[in-house]
């Protein structure tokens, strides 16, 4: 294994570990709190639920993309 490959793998492992911690916190905090509200919305206001669902998934995508990009920059920047 070359030095470059080893460094990339190490960076990636650190990134995955930090990401996993954040995701676990996210499950317990956000999804736990949103669960009941979304359930009520889905059963009573289907059209509002459809809009909220799309906004949530796109919002999470933008947030996670920014988070992973930030983590990559931070870890790579520190190891250089």
């Amino acid at each position, binding site marked *: 294994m070359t030095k470059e490959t080893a460094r990339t793998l190490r960076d990636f492992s650190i990134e*995955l570990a930090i*990401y996993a911690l954040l*995701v676990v916190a*996210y*499950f317990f905090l956000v*999804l736990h709190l*949103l*669960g*009941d509200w*979304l*359930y009520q919305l*889905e059963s009573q206001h*289907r*059209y509002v*639920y*459809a*809009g*909220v*669902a*799309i906004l*949530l*998934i*796109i919002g*999470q*995508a*933008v947030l*996670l*993309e920014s988070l*992973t990009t930030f983590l990559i920059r931070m870890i790579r920047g520190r190891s250089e």
Partner: protein
Amino acid sequence: MFFPISGPHISPIYLVIVGFVIGILGGFFGVGGSFIAGPALRLVGLDWNFAVGTDLAHIVGKSVVAAKRHRALGNVDLRLGLVMAVGTIAGAEGGAQLIQMLKRAGNVNFVVSIVSIVVYLSISAFMLWESRKTLKSQRRRSSKAKVKGLTAKKKDKSAFGHVSRAIQRLKIWPMIALPTSGVKGISLWVILLVAFVGGLFSGFLGGGAGYIRMPSMVYVLGIPTHLAVGTDLFEIIISASYGTLSHAVKGNVDILIALVMHTGAAIGAQIGAISTQYFAGPKIRLAFVPLPLIGAAIVIYTLVSGHKL
């Protein structure tokens, strides 16, 4: 973890791993990955209608991440993606109508299964033949003049290139230019037709039909593979959002499951998208070959055993 909207108890780790695998495939090949996500969700007890709708919602999130990454790498043709989205949505509606017609005739399962097996096998066989032929001719050329670097990888050669060039020469008004994809002029109707056919299969067979759209963009429209992958992902954001809204209104989307799956898909999609930079177009196309075969194997299994995965 209990998901109150659809009712089942599913391990979030399982969902994250499934999302991660589909994310890598989506980022690398520009496909939605519903041929894996659907059966994977069914396996843990989700009803078929929820599996389809929830998968679509998860595809939206994954495609946003992968398309953003591909855009940063210069692999997204926005103009082409927007035009294709129109054709795809129209095609998806057409496909859904076709399904309703077959339902009324009473033989929907058999017809859809046979059509999908034929389509999947044809795509795999054709892409295997084309990418191997292209790679062979590239090896012959590279022994004469060795080309190095990332830009050489994006200069996409195809053994089927003469067909896409002939299609680009068809002068059917209105013609549009796609400078990002390196296409000087192509009929708008050809793009809409390709997108419509992709959408038709999406509505007819389920999922995003990236296994049809990505190869058609390369072989019919003459779009370089890297751009076809990135643009397909951008287009999937629009068409899958439409599908998600439609399914959510009908009560087929458990957004909590989609959000959990997406935490894995977000990182997988980034890995997949970045990986495309290390492979030339024909190699990506060759690696694509097993995907429709997996789809065909699943359909054959359901047809023979009677179990719907």
